[in-house]
């Protein structure tokens, strides 16, 4: 052991997070509250460290914005045993680096593809083109995957686009809908009920249960939306249906 850190305990999981009870088959490791890239980086780092530690009885972990849900089998282990083993895990310095890859999502904005664009423009006091320019002009990061297979919470939105969720969620949101709510944007990968505001549509597919991993995105990826005209949207939709569309990437860093 070559412990050279001046304050060696500072990056230990037990110092950075607290354990919360989630029944007898899971517990949460909570690093704080709110949406923050440093907290999120710690969550993903903790997931990686716990995977490496290969503690018996852990069935899977689910990272979210500021906490990691650890699922375990109480017939093999217990929350107390696992938490004791995890407290000392060294999470290192939380580093938020530029994404290694950046996906580019061609998006048809407004019209029937984005039925809430006009209302978003009204509510924000921006012209619809300005809403599109701001939404498409921001580099987002994949904070969390979840809610639906292939859904990713992408953040953060420019503050001038922040709006609450719809008061009455839609019963059916079409697949590919590009949506915003509060500080997040995302794409509904399949038809689903939903309360986010729909500003556009992309023909891309984000989930393939036969692929490994099954999602296009990985946590920490960068994502940028690119305005596409109706003709290009239709052409990409056909290519996706044929199975010969390769999603665009920008060079990451």
């Amino acid at each position: 052991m070559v412990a050279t850190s001046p304050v060696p305990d500072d990056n230990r999981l037990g110092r950075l997070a607290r354990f919360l009870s989630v029944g007898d088959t899971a517990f949460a490791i909570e690093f704080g509250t709110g949406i923050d890239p440093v907290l999120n980086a710690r969550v993903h780092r903790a997931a990686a460290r716990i995977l490496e530690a290969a503690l018996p009885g852990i069935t899977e972990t689910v990272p979210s914005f500021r906490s990691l849900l650890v699922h375990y089998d109480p017939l093999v282990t217990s929350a107390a045993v696992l938490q004791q083993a995890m407290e000392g895990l060294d999470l290192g310095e939380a580093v938020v680096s530029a994404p290694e890859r950046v996906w580019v999502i061609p998006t048809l904005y407004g019209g029937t593809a984005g039925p809430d664009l006009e209302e978003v423009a009204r509510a924000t006091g921006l012209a619809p083109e300005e809403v599109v320019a701001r939404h498409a002009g921001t580099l987002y990061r994949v904070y969390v995957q979840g809610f639906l297979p292939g859904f990713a919470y992408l953040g953060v939105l420019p503050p001038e686009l922040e709006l609450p969720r719809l008061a009455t969620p839609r019963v059916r949101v079409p697949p590919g809908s590009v949506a915003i709510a509060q500080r997040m944007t995302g794409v509904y990968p399949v038809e689903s009920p939903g309360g986010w505001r729909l500003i556009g549509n992309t023909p891309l597919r984000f989930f393939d249960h036969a692929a490994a991993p099954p999602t296009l995105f990985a946590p920490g990826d960068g994502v940028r939306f690119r305005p596409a005209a109706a003709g290009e949207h239709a052409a990409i939709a056909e290519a996706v249906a044929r199975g010969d569309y390769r999603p665009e990437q920008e060079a990451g860093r």
Partner: protein
Amino acid sequence: MSARLLVTQPGPQTTVQDLGRTGAQAYGVPVCGALDGVALRLANALAGNEPNAAALECRLIGPSFTVEGGPVRLAIAGAEAAIEVTREGETRSYPAWRAIDVPEGASVRIGALRGSGAAVLAVAGGIDVPAVLGSRATDLKGGFGGLDGRALKAGDRVAVVAGTPAGPCLELPRPPSLAFDGVLRVVLGPQDDSFTEEGLAAFLGTAYRVSREADRMGIRLDGAPLAFRAGADITSDGIATGAIQVPGSGLPIVLLADHQTVGGYAKIATVISADLPRAGRLLPGAELRFKAVGVGEAEEARRALEREVVSLIASLTPVRAAAEIDLAALYAANLISGVVTACDPE
């Protein structure tokens, strides 16, 4: 050629389920799987299968189907039900909690379930559908797993894994009681601190009723609304099966097998895993109270349930001839004519 079930009446929601799809929740893939995991294991044991073999979960009313391509061995667990087997105009009725050999060409009708809203019909060999991300469970929302990611419909041919079951039909001599004592045990948290003292007191001190909004994702409860300190919204975090989330209405929702992987409502408590099969059986109108226990006690309750399941499976015995006679008398009123012997090797 292996046997198939040609579905003539699918029932309200019959889906292919196993013990669930773990390991992909980080990708947003819910666990799914049987609402009553104990029923799945017992049905599979009765049919001579591995515990995780794919079976049919029936809600409220079971399906009707014709057996094609070879005989099958069936067993229902998790609810009381009459299983009517008709062959060449002769109908015979069998109860749950035992295996039944059904010859090729016979039709099977499973009536209304009693004692639970979610029974499991296992077929010896298991339902033959491809595994997706390590499981054969149906993900209704994602549209994959099971039979094309959906519930059964009339005209479906459900394939059964080939192989002839060996040995006599088994029965469970003392089926577990389905009576609900009205209590679900919970561990408080992870966001119990989002609620006022009065809110927590109402949650643990008053009765709730299962509303009509109850499905595989969760059951919405009617009763005293729970007061928040600040509000229902939290920064979205991971959800465990059994989590009790409370949206702005203040009325709790117990999340079941098909729940989403992350969510943004405060979760006041989590139903302990030993009580999840009971939660899965609940029907609209059922009254219940929540009782708080510690994590250690909940883990011990789960181990106790496991010992009980293991001992139930160890207690399986060949169907007694006496039981056949009793049944013939019991169901005589239902007989059109004659008797199809349960375990004929035909």
